[in-house]
């Protein structure tokens, strides 16, 4: 089924007893369940875009790539840096999976930019919630609720977002460190107003530069990184990005380098951030898991994960973990598998309020979480 309008989407849902919407399938684990799949790929196109309003509305199946290109023509962007854009991720899939990229560090995540939705509930009704202007407090904030809802409470048909003008220039400093968590936390409340603060651990440095060896394990000693991780704070590389007028960035970058003498300006920064957003650093056929955490739990996660590749984002508030094959090492963490053969929630299962599911989908037309 490939509906091309919200009305057709509603009709298709009414005709299907057990259904899950799927966009481009860039997070394939999220749509692996026992249900009829409805593709939103033909439900595509930008409905409204007014650069002067800082808002756009698009159908849920619109590739984010197309939206990003339209915004760029007016010098605007989605500041939360959507993921898997080159891979073809759709706007609806991005909302339902609740994924934000490195840029969420400065202005907030996807949840902070979604303004309104039109969705189909479990009874096949086409409903609008939220609004189309940058500020709106009328009614319950269902648009936010759909962020991360995985298509289990309703199917998005059309979505309105707030956008921002994009800074004219960016610079990234790469800082090798033997304590990723401490380095990130020491930078997070500085005057620099970092645009992104990420870190790579476990030999997955997407900048393709040599990751420093653990200080206690001289090169060639053969000591496994996992052993090192368990006994001390994780080593790796921190990536700090600043954005703004080019003339201002030289001074900010110089000050960051003065504070962190092991750092260096990353020359191929565009390629690096693309690699981060597209998960180029992850095992191609492995398991990819998102973990929500706080920076202080970063060492604990690294210790639990052994030699997995880990990319931290948002100053250590989220980790993306790549394992060649699934290993159940996520106990005690909020975790979601995006691809690969692993439980959907390999750690703590998300909160469920059964009454809300009943309110939106009384017949369980969408599979329950």
């Amino acid at each position, binding site marked *: 089924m490939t509906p091309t309008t919200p009305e057709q989407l509603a009709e298709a849902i009414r005709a299907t007893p057990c259904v899950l919407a799927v966009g481009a399938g860039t997070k394939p684990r999220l749509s692996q369940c026992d249900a009829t799949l409805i593709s939103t790929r033909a439900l595509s196109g930008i409905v409204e875009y*007014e*650069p*002067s*309003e*800082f808002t756009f509305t698009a159908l849920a199946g619109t590739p984010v790539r197309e939206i990003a290109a339209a915004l760029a023509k007016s*010098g605007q962007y989605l500041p939360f840096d959507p993921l898997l854009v080159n891979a073809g991720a759709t706007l609806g899939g991005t909302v339902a999976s*609740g994924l934000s990229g490195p840029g*969420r560090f400065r202005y*907030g995540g996807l949840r*902070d930019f979604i303004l309104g939705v039109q969705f189909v509930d479990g009874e096949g*009704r086409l*409903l*609008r*919630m939220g*609004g*189309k*202007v*940058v*500020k*709106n*407090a*009328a*009614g*319950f904030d*269902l648009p*936010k*609720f*759909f*962020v*991360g809802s995985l298509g*289990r409470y309703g199917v998005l048909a059309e979505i309105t977002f707030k956008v*921002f*003008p994009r800074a*004219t220039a960016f610079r990234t400093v790469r800082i090798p460190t033997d304590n990723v968590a401490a380095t990130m936390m020491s930078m997070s*409340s500085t*005057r620099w*107003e970092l645009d992104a603060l990420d870190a790579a651990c476990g030999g997955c440095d997407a900048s393709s530069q040599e990751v420093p060896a653990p200080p206690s394990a001289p090169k060639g000693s053969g000591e496994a990184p996992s052993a090192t991780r368990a006994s001390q704070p994780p080593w790796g590389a921190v990536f700090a990005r600043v954005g*703004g*007028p080019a*003339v*201002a960035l030289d001074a*900010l970058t110089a000050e960051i380098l003065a504070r962190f003498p092991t750092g260096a300006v990353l020359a191929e920064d565009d390629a690096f951030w693309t690699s981060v957003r597209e998960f180029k650093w992850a095992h191609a056929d492995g398991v990819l898991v*998102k973990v*929500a955490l*706080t*920076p*202080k739990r970063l060492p604990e996660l690294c210790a639990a994960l052994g030699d997995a590749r880990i990319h931290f984002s948002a100053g250590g*508030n989220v980790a993306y973990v790549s394992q060649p094959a699934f290993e159940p090492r996520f106990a005690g963490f*909020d*975790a*979601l598998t995006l691809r690969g053969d692993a439980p959907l929630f390999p750690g*703590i299962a*998300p*909160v469920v*309020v*059964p*009454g*809300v599911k009943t*309110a*939106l989908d009384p017949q369980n037309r969408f599979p329950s979480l």
Partner: protein
Amino acid sequence: MLPSAPSLDRLKSLLPPERFLTQSAELAAYESDGLTAFKATPLAVAVPETQDEVIALVRACHAEGIPFVARGSGTSLSGGSMPVEGGIVITLNRLNRIVRLDHEERIAVVEAGVINTAVTLAAAPYGLLFAPDPSSQSICTIGGNIAFNSGGAHCLKYGMTSNHVLGLKAVLANGEVVEFGGASREMIGPDWTGLFVGNEGLFGIALEATLQLLPKPECYHTVLAGYHTIEQAGDAVSAIIASGLLPGAIEIMEGLAIEAAKAAVHADYPPGCDAVLIIELEGPREVVAADRARLDAILAASHPVEVRPARDANERLAIWKGRKSAFSAVGRLSPDFIVQDGVVPRRRLGEALRRIGEMSREMNIRCANVFHAGDGNLHPLILYDGREPGALHRAEQLAGRILKMCVEMGGSITGEHGVGVEKRDYLADMFSAEEIECMKRIRAAFDPLGIANPGKMFPGKEAPALTHHGLHPLEKAGVISRE
């Protein structure tokens, strides 16, 4: 139907007598909130001091079917914390502990009764701030900010309260205690925290919240520009937006509001101006310096009467004082006024103001305009004299026409004050019957008996008693001001 006496006895048994108020003199202080045109007398006011006491009260209300209204400092401008007849008020001001502040993770865990500015004060030694800044921030509580998803002057860049609440502990109206979200800025699964924020007290009571703190901008550059006409000020805003700058705040005051601010706080505005524009840039000093050069050029080309940059922190505060006191200042021009909160697409601001002016003249009701120009959030102040028969009714008619205009233009009936009692009849202008039914079903998931803040947000319930009041007493005293 009024609950029978035994049911109140059960509630009464949960608190010492001095914290369960039932005398009419004690109740009088809780009859109204920031929307002073409405009032209702509760059966009792409960003053819990701990989260467990709040939970016990809500569970008893659920068991006895007694409606309750949670109240912080009572600054709601939409009647959100106005009591319901036959129900009780649960005040949360004494739940005022800052449980934990972690400057490295940039979060604060606070109880619902903590005052908005207390969070920023606690964060200041670490160079951090809590971004939401409603004009009542010196007395309004975090619990109220959460219930109504409060805004402020800096929403364009930082968003509303919801954008800064990471996690919540709440007692739902069905007596259940839930925890949503947490200390991480990211999450797994649906955004329950996001759904709860802005529920207008219809789901239950937030007890404790985890708030995100941001680095305090190193540098501010605040400019006041005066214009002969509101159109010129509006054009300047359009030019700023088109330039790609992202100011922290863009505010406009016009006509009557300017006169009022001059009279009340001796705000010093350029003479002969019908519109005053306030723009604030913020960030690292190098960024602000570069942005300032661009802003200066835009303003110079915008035909201002005068442009006055704040030269130091005191001048910045003076500019903001004039703006933030505008509402209470208007109180000097009129015994009563209604504040509206509609939103229009930014490009239609000029048209919206023109139509408000026309309606105001046509109905012979004075109207002062103050608004968040950056995000199209209008605050028309509709002046009336409540002693004059029918005046409030006519003022409300004008307010209603303005709200309908906002919806017609593709905007919203409320940008930051919430629907509350005041705008519930207009919810149906924005949402279809099916959409409102959907919201009601969601409400019922948290509050099956409909006892949490009933009569708010949804149209069609019995209208509360309309009474003439004056300004909020604290507003008269100049302690608080409205956004």
